[in-house]
């Protein structure tokens, strides 16, 4: 077979697919942001199917509690960079794919540059800050965005921001949810997630990416799929043909400075560090990793007397309240180095 496409013969036999569709995949550049529960199957299927260039962006290291749903990683990978581990395994899976590694979190000061060289962006992140930033970056940069999100037994999937008509674009995430108070929504480490949901929704994301690139099938544009893995029911909700939003600048909130437990251990051996638990006393009584104890509500009443030259590492159960603590402190003391323990105690 020409072009070394023998590997792809079983997809090139599809109606609506062909050698030219395969060539489109080979020529395509896809950026996958987040190499976690959704990112693992997205990456494995995009690599398997022969997408020519795949970028992976993630600042996290592998943790034990990731392993129940993040199928690219095993216990031997714990503590290593997700991007590095994933890239190595994916290169073995298909050496013809150019894998590009970005071992950092997406942030307002890098998101445009990061996405600019890619044809399609895939949002596989696990927090609202990143999701809004990616959404707004794609709207401003006119990039198609394949979105999925999961919680417990339920997943959402959509393709945002495709050209519609008259210079207008199809709906994006802010058409559904203009803004969210993130502290009101539990994440997977609190509410749990069934691992197979990551596989189902991630494979569906990769499916939409392949359909978009090759021009086959009907994309989930102007619609959102809601899938329930408990009942196996799904419904597609119609949003509309064009967006009603007007997004012209990136979210103003600076990205939250996070720190992993491994980084904390490393930095604390080199630098004066103050660890601060912002949970309630009842939570602390059950389990703690040491440090000062200043509950978030006390912090909100009056700023404590902390050494501003130290590295200040805040922690809570999930990273949510410690994030609030960091926001509060940096608002008042812009020059301090305050960080929130990523994922909290449950992410360790």
């Amino acid at each position, binding site marked *: 077979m020409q072009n070394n496409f023998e590997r792809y013969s079983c997809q090139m036999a599809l109606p609506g697919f062909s050698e030219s569709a395969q060539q489109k995949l080979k020529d395509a550049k896809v950026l996958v942001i987040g190499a976690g529960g959704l990112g693992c199957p997205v990456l494995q299927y995009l690599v398997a199917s022969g997408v020519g260039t795949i970028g992976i962006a993630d600042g996290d290291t592998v943790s034990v509690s990731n392993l129940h749903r993040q199928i690219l990683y095993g216990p031997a990978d714990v503590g290593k960079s997700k991007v590095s581990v994933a890239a190595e395994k994916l290169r073995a899976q298909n050496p013809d794919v150019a894998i590009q590694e970005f071992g950092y979190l997406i942030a307002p000061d890098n998101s445009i540059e990061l996405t600019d060289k890619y044809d399609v962006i895939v949002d596989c992140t696990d927090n609202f800050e990143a999701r809004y930033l990616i959404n707004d970056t794609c709207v401003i940069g006119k990039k198609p965005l394949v979105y999925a999100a*999961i919680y417990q037994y339920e997943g959402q999937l959509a393709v945002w921001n495709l050209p519609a008509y008259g210079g207008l674009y199809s709906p994006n995430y802010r058409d559904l949810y203009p803004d969210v*108070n993130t502290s009101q929504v539990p994440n997977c480490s609190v509410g749990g997630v069934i691992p197979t949901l*990551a596989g189902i929704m991630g494979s569906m994301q990769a499916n939409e990416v392949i359909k978009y690139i090759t021009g086959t099938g009907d994309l989930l544009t102007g619609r959102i799929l809601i899938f329930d893995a408990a009942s196996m029911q799904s419904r597609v909700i119609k949003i509309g043909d064009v967006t009603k939003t007007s997004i012209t600048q990136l979210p103003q909130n600076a990205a939250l400075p996070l720190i992993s437990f491994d980084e904390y251990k490393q930095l604390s051996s080199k630098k004066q560090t103050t660890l601060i638990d912002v949970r309630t006393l009842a939570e602390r009584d059950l389990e703690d990793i040491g440090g000062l104890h200043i509950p978030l509500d006390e912090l909100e009443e009056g700023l404590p007397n902390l050494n501003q030259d130290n590295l200040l590492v805040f922690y809570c159960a999930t990273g949510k309240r410690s994030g609030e603590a960091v926001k509060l402190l940096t608002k008042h003391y812009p020059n301090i180095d305050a960080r929130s323990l990523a994922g909290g105690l449950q992410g360790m």
Partner: protein
Amino acid sequence: MDITLLAFGIAKDIFGASSVTVAVNEASPVSILKEKIELNYPKFKALKSYMVAVNNEYAADDLILSASDEVAIIPPVSGG
């Protein structure tokens, strides 16, 4: 009229059930339904935004409801 709300995601936790019934006047718009929901379940107000889907279409605030409508409450989801 009574409107049955199907709960998705954390709406199940907030309602404490997979569906609840809310009473609104005949021909009320979605905005009135949302006010009722936020009055009975203040966490929806705190959430800032959530989707109301009527008969599997995204419902703007001015859509007029009727008793036979299937109404789904779909909050945002962040996990990955």
